[in-house]
């Protein structure tokens, strides 16, 4: 995966390398230039001293050896001269067998001239006129120790530069990490958003991120709005159809239709189909619409009211117990879970003689909802058909056989399972297992 951190690091590395190399070379070049200027003055002085040392002797013009610097006497000392007279050439003793060439032009020579023993000579030529003849004095000095020093300095600077580069890169890494921290925070918030633990991003983001956060938030709002609208549309349509359906149901009971029993029954069946379809689609629309969970299910808060409601609907029950660990919070939408529990418990209450119990427990990564009653139960061979969609076994007890289908739809959406068994109380046991979302 591409990384901003790495790209910034590589970019900075190249920039710093370029700048470092240019800086080191330029500074060395400038120092070298200054040094040569300085040495040029020295060489000119040498040339002038040589001029002064040129005296008229008994054998014509000659060099007064005593006036010369001892460095010109010692072989290969690094200081050399050459004096060109019209008829002869003098060379310093120090040049030994090395022939210092006379430069073609006067002044400091560009570049260095190879000297004896690997020396590199800085050469200066000055032209004079003395005792009526032209003198061309060339003084040279070994520049090699300085060149070596420069090389050393270059290496040293490169080393320091590399070290500095590492430090800078490290600091930059820390810096970028700190600068990207808000981005990381937003990333975590988006993750929480996905898990449904928050409804929108914090709007107090850094200035650079604010537009992004705003965009995401307004997108969320838009999605939420259009979802709610379409959900409401389905809901409104569904609910609007229910009253006419109730009217049709009522019309079917008219005495005029008593003579047309088969017709009445067929219409009744068709109304059943419409009604079931409607209830399930309404439930499904609500389920699929729930991207951003509103309230989760607080057992301590919801179970007592649910039980009260059931006791009110089924006053014949002596005992309706709801057991859940205190403070348990189920991470599903409150209304959907109420629908599941309400339907299952209502069903149990319809069949129970006196007792219904609900227990909720957490079993590892699963949640187990167990509903038991002391009613007649369901024979094993009938259980699978009970689970088949929309069927109902209870022709006597009022209800539309819809509850279980709605429960199944909801459980399917949550990846849960439903199993029927024998209850310890004697009747039917319904086990609902729900995988806990991470």
């Amino acid at each position, binding site marked *: 995966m591409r990384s901003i951190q790495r790209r910034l690091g590589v970019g900075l590395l190249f920039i710093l390398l370029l700048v470092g190399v240019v800086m080191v070379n330029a500074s060395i070049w400038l120092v070298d230039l200054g040094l040569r200027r300085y040495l040029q003055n020295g060489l000119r002085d040498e040339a002038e001293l040589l001029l002064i040392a040129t005296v008229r002797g008994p054998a014509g013009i000659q060099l007064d050896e005593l006036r010369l610097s001892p460095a010109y006497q010692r072989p290969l000392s690094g200081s050399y001269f050459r004096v060109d007279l019209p008829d002869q050439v003098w060379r310093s003793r120090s040049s030994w067998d090395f022939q210092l060439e006379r430069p073609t032009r006067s002044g400091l020579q560009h570049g260095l001239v190879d000297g004896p023993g690997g020396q590199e000579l800085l050469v200066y030529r000055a032209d004079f006129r003395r005792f009526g003849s032209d003198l061309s004095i060339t003084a040279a000095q070994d520049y090699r120790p300085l060149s070596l020093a420069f090389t050393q300095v270059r290496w040293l600077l490169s080393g320091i530069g590399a070290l500095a580069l590492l430090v800078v890169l490290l600091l930059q890494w820390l810096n970028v990490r700190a600068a990207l921290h808000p981005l990381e925070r937003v990333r975590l918030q988006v993750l929480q958003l996905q898990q449904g633990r928050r409804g929108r991003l914090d709007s107090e983001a850094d200035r650079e991120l604010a537009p992004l956060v705003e965009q995401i938030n307004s997108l969320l709002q838009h999605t939420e709005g259009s979802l709610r609208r379409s959900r409401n549309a389905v809901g409104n349509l569904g609910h609007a159809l*229910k009253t006419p359906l109730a009217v049709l149901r009522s*019309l079917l009971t008219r005495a005029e239709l008593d003579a047309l029993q088969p017709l009445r029954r067929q219409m009744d069946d068709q109304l059943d189909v419409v009604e079931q379809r409607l209830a399930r689609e309404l439930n499904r629309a609500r389920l699929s619409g729930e991207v951003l969970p509103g309230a989760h299910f607080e057992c301590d808060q919801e179970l007592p009211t649910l039980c009260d409601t059931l006791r009110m609907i089924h006053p014949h029950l002596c005992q309706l117990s709801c057991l859940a660990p205190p403070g348990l919070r189920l991470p599903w939408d409150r209304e959907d879970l109420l629908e599941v529990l309400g339907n299952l418990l209502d069903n149990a209450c319809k069949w129970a003689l006196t007792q219904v119990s609900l227990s909720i427990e957490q079993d590892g990564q699963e949640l187990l909802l167990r509903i038991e009653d002391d009613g007649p139960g369901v024979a094993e061979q009938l259980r699978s058909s009970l689970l088949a969609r929309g069927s109902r076994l209870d022709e006597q007890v009022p209800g539309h056989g819809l509850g279980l289908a709605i429960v199944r739809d909801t459980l399917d959406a949550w990846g849960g399972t439903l199993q029927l068994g024998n209850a310890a109380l004697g009747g039917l046991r319904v086990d609902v297992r729900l995988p806990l979302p991470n």
Partner: protein
Amino acid sequence: MRLLLVEDNVPLADELVQGLQRQGYAIDWLADGRDAAFQAACEPYDLIILDLGLPGRPGLDVLREWRDAGLRFPVLILTARASWAERIEGLRAGADDYLAKPFHPEELFLRVQGLLRRARGLDSRAPIEVAGLRLDESRQTVWRDNEEIGLTGAEFRLLRYFMLHSNQLLSKSRLGEHLYEGDGEPDSNVLEVHVNHLRRKLGRQVIETRRGQGYCFVGLSA
């Protein structure tokens, strides 16, 4: 038994009014939440069937207002919003039962019967049985021992009210208020005629006359 139906859908209300009348209830119908809030507070209804999606005022609001005012008549909520969350909300607001649309009319009638029995402290699932008489509400007859006695509509209404209020002194005006809808209160002679019919069918002693006060249903055992 006098009921108030609060329902804004006219065809449904028509059907329900007719159906409930066939069941022997006196029934008033209102379509607006504001009217309902007012009328239920001044008329002595035995039960109210309340739709939640009402024009004027939401049904739940009206219900809360009644309960806050201390009105204890049973209320059956009738609504298209059938989720358990809404059901719980309705029952917490003070409803006694909740029926989701669409429903079979029989189911509504059964619920109404049950609620009326429950409101009188009787088992909502067992038929009304008082002092040797058993009322069959579906056939609108009464059983004395193993003998089924047929009743006219008016007799059935009267007997049901008596049996739900046995051993209580019931004035003629109270009987009139609870047995006839709206302003259709009959003069007391009509009531007297029905009472006499019942006495003739069931035995003189079942209904005692308290002169100047009204009637008291005591059944066969007294």
